[in-house]
């Protein structure tokens, strides 16, 4: 059967309302003296404390990570909290591994399998260029498997078609660093000027180093609970944040077989449209956004694909400050991948952490005014996209 790529398809049917009741982060950075399980369990303890939920009351856990650190790392991490015998599922979905674990946790609770679920993710990303394929892949000889190379192709094309100047892309990184400087968990807290961003060394022209996210280590965790079970577990309802949409898609064919076009909604748009339909909300209702800014161009294209800004205009919106903390589309308020860094398995749940923190009005110096509806979008290889919408 033919399916148009931009139509929402196979929208799952949610059951009962589900709330995020606790979030936790291990700082992002480099931690040579802590193994992956230690980072992960640290974030879980923080989330349990934040939720006021006992570990013995968690009946299922989903763990996002990508790089190999031995088998069943999720079980190893959680064994330090006590062997409660619950199902623990290890999830690999590239850069969307964490947000995929969160998506699975949501559906496990919404459909009634469990009242509570833990989603957590951790990563220790090695230094150097990130590749998708295995070392034996033909793409290593063809030269096409280069994550930042792909972003650079899109950026060059976007500049050609929209007339966006290099300074607009640098502004994405400047803004990310400003937000990150207000966040004690960020990998990179130093701020830069537009000139310093453009003057940093080239990674893949026209992308300079400071427009590419650092590869990082870190962990993030979230505890979710069915709304109708909150009182049973004595959970503070006033700090609970509702999950209004949880959507996950993989690729559809775009007629080209690669996705480096200037206007490239096809990866993200299906998940976004599903999320808007599921939540009954539209782009105009969203007043807080976390998107996958692995490179500066990524933030602009995701904002356009989410229909928050018309195609080809995100660079102007960025230059005008509309995506800053004080703008009308505050984006990547915790610093995003560009300042937080990008531990793959943790990133998607880090976005949930920031959205929840903002909606609870607990974000301190980076608090966005009137944050009621927050959207978190995470991309991964395989054209994976997750879009979650949270409301308070």
């Amino acid at each position, binding site marked *: *059967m*033919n*399916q148009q790529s931009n139509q929402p398809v196979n929208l799952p049917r949610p059951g009962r309302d589900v709330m995020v009741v606790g979030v936790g982060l291990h700082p992002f950075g480099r931690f040579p003296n802590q193994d992956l399980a230690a980072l992960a369990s640290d974030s879980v303890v923080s989330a349990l404390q934040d939720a006021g939920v006992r570990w013995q009351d968690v009946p299922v856990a989903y763990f996002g990570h990508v790089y190999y650190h031995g088998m069943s790392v999720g079980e190893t991490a959680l064994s330090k909290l006590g062997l409660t015998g619950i199902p623990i599922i290890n999830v690999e979905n590239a850069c969307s591994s964490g947000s995929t674990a969160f998506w699975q946790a949501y559906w496990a609770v919404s459909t009634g399998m469990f009242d509570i679920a833990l989603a957590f993710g951790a990563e220790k990303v090695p230094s*150097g*260029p990130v*590749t998708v394929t295995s*070392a034996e892949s*033909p793409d*290593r*000889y*063809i*030269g*096409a*498997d*280069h994550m930042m*190379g792909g972003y*650079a*192709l*899109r950026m*060059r*094309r976007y500049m*050609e078609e929209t007339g966006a100047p290099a300074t607009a892309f640098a502004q994405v990184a400047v803004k990310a660093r400003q937000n990150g400087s207000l966040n004690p968990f960020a990998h990179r807290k130093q701020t830069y000027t537009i000139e310093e961003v453009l003057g940093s*060394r*080239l*990674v*893949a*022209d*026209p*992308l300079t180093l400071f427009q590419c996210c650092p590869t990082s280590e870190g962990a993030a965790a979230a505890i979710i609970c069915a709304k109708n079970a909150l009182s049973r577990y004595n959970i503070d309802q006033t700090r609970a944040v509702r999950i209004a949409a949880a959507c996950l898609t993989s690729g*559809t*064919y775009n*007629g*080209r*077989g*690669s996705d*480096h*076009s200037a206007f490239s909604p096809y990866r993200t748009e299906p998940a976004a449209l599903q999320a808007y339909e599921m939540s009954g909300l539209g782009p105009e209702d969203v007043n807080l956004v976390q998107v996958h800014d692995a490179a500066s161009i990524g933030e602009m294209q995701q904002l356009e694909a989410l229909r928050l800004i018309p195609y080809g205009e995100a660079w102007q919106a960025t230059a005008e400050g509309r995506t800053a903390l004080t703008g009308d589309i505050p984006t990547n308020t915790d610093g995003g991948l560009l300042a937080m860094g990008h531990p793959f398995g943790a990133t998607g749940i880090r976005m949930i952490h920031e959205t929840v923190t903002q909606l609870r009005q607990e974000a301190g110096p980076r608090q966005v005014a009137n944050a009621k509806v927050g959207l978190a979008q995470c991309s991964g290889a395989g054209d994976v996209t997750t879009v979650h919408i949270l409301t308070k």
Partner: protein
Amino acid sequence: MPASVDPQRLKLNGDDEVTGVLIGFRCLDCRVKVFGQATFCQSCASSNLEPVEFSDSGILFSYTIIRVPPAGWPGPVPYILGEIALPEGPHVLAEVIGIRESDLNIGMHMELTIQSVKVTGSDQEKAAYKWRPSNTELSEEKANQ
């Protein structure tokens, strides 16, 4: 004779010059043409497919210069990575050779070229597909100088 870097995407002609053609399929149901062999159509999931050979030329859709190569890259650093739009629709990413970075322009005509590359950590070679400016681009450049 080097083997094709990926027999699913590059069919060698078996001649001494090491020439070849990019291959894929055409879907007889939805008519889409896809680069690389497959079992089912990536667009409509039909199995009613026929093999196709693609044009050996296309248009430069975008490009970058890779300054920090991925592990296992056997070629020079930096190298130019080009995205070429084939007239049949698919886009094909590969190294661009035979042109200076400063002479690259989106929209240039490019043509396929096959080159042997060393397999990392072995004496073997593989035939890889690359792009270079077509002769018309080169003669225009000469005329402009």
